[in-house]
């Protein structure tokens, strides 16, 4: 496959501006940033991992109660949100590509599109949360006792809590991500990025995709499994 490769370091004048004093070369700086970002993502994997482990334990402990909770999940909204996030991932990676090609207009366009998708996701999530609130399915704050399946009243509470905890943490990451994108947008507007310097776009892109991956697991686990029963 033909891969376009742009060697960094062809235009030294630009580089020096962004080379921090303690690095020898821009390549070293870029490598360090990439490795640092991936290391950070590993911590994120384990952070969410704690919740996934709790989820796995309780799901296995209370299978039926679990099945009952997924009947309250809105598969349409959840599915739409999955698609929205996947689209945002596409626009994000296109934004990175635009930055790599020094295409400022495309960069700005795709950043804005990514943010729009991100916001759309949050809005849809907001509607879902609202529906849960109305139905009294928010443990600890507004819990109406799970009257339709009183036999699961206790255990469903735990599982709904995990739902809110996991999607809430995910949403929080989205909010942070949108903040970071705003920062990128400003920088892009100021013509900071070009083919020689686009590390921030790439790093924040990694973060954004990671958040997408989390959702890719949340969607089937919370919405799909057992929702028919």
């Amino acid at each position, binding site marked *: 496959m033909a891969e376009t490769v742009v060697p960094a370091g062809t235009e030294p004048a630009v580089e020096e501006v962004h080379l921090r004093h303690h690095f020898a070369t821009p390549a070293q700086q870029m490598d360090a940033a990439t490795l640092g970002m991936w290391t950070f993502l590993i911590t994120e994997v384990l952070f969410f991992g704690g919740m996934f482990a709790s989820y796995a334990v309780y799901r296995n402990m209370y*299978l*039926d109660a679990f099945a009952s909770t997924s009947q309250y999940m809105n598969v349409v909204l959840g599915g739409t949100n999955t698609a929205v996030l996947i689209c945002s991932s596409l626009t994000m990676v296109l934004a990175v590509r635009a930055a790599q090609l020094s295409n400022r207009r495309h960069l700005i366009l795709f950043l804005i599109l990514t943010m729009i998708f991100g916001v759309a996701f949050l809005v849809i999530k907001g509607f879902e949360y609202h529906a849960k609130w109305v139905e009294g399915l928010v443990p600890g704050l507004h819990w109406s006792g799970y009257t339709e399946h*009183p*036999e*699961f*009243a*206790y*255990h469903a509470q735990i599982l709904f809590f995990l739902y809110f905890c996991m999607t809430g943490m995910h949403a929080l990451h989205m909010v942070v991500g949108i903040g970071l994108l705003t920062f990128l947008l400003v920088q892009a507007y100021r013509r900071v990025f070009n083919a020689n310097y686009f590390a921030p776009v790439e790093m924040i892109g990694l973060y954004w995709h990671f958040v997408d991956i989390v959702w890719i697991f949340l969607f089937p686990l919370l919405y799909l499994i057992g929702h028919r029963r």
Partner: protein
Amino acid sequence: MLASMRILADLPLFPVAASEQAGSIDALYWFITAISILMTVIIFLGLGIFAWKYHNKRHPHATQIEGSTKLELTWSILPFLIMLIMFGWGADLYYKAQTPPKDAMEIFVTGKQWMWKIQYPDGTREINALHVPVGQPVKLTMASEDVIHSFSIPAFRVRHDVMPGHYNTLWFTATKPGHYHLFCTEYCGDQHAGMIGWVDVLEPREYANWASGGASQGSLAEQGQKLFEQNGCATCHLLDQQGRCPILRGLYNKPVQLADGRTVIADDAYIRESILDPNAKIVAGFQPNVMPNFKGQISEENVIQLIAYIKSLSPSTPASQQGSQQPPVVIAPKAGAAAKPGGAAQH
């Protein structure tokens, strides 16, 4: 000076061993300690000898040495083999600690901030005091009303956490009559240090005497029967003619078919759950939400009484085939004593 000498002479350095467990755990403890001392001596000797012999006064010029794979392998594999012995030995004791003999007499313990409540099959109750006969395996079934506690008798070298929401068990066979400490060893709040008591190990005859003294309220099962009637369990579970509720006769220790297709054994934990969270496991052929939830209304102690009663509704099976179940529960106050002669005869 003299006073401090006296204190030192009185210093207890090693706990009494008053149970069968204590002996075997001590043996392992000394084994590990001996290995530890040996290894410590080797390391210290090595350090000392090298420090002296190769002190820069005596040995001003160091010889540079790369290392030695053979040595490295020796001192990683050899210690590991020794540790494997510790593991195997320890695993054996651990397994035994978790498998009480079938003829163990059963006593019930409820931990609560900050006291231990003890219930005997004959209905006697005590707080922060446990009486057991010499030579008889005793199994404790333990529950907690609130937080995690841990039931510990150092002289017996037994200990197990008491988790809220579970039954935990431990067992021992006391070997030495005496008066021993009973501690809570899992931090449980302000008076954690006050959650202590005494274990009295009595000769079988004394124990029989002691046992015949108490129990004015009837046996555990009888107390359970009262509760069974007071809480309205009987209306459903014994008198119900419409088949809305399962009949509890002969339930204990039998497999139960659940509505979700699983089969469970109706042991203590299952019955406890059936009372405190009836919807957790629905018996096949019955409806959820019929049986009221008794959480918060029935204490762990009462649950123990109810279980004893439900047990007593089962015809006793021959001893060889019973699990932890034991006949005395069904019968009258002297039940606890009835089990003893057999136990004592072993010694």
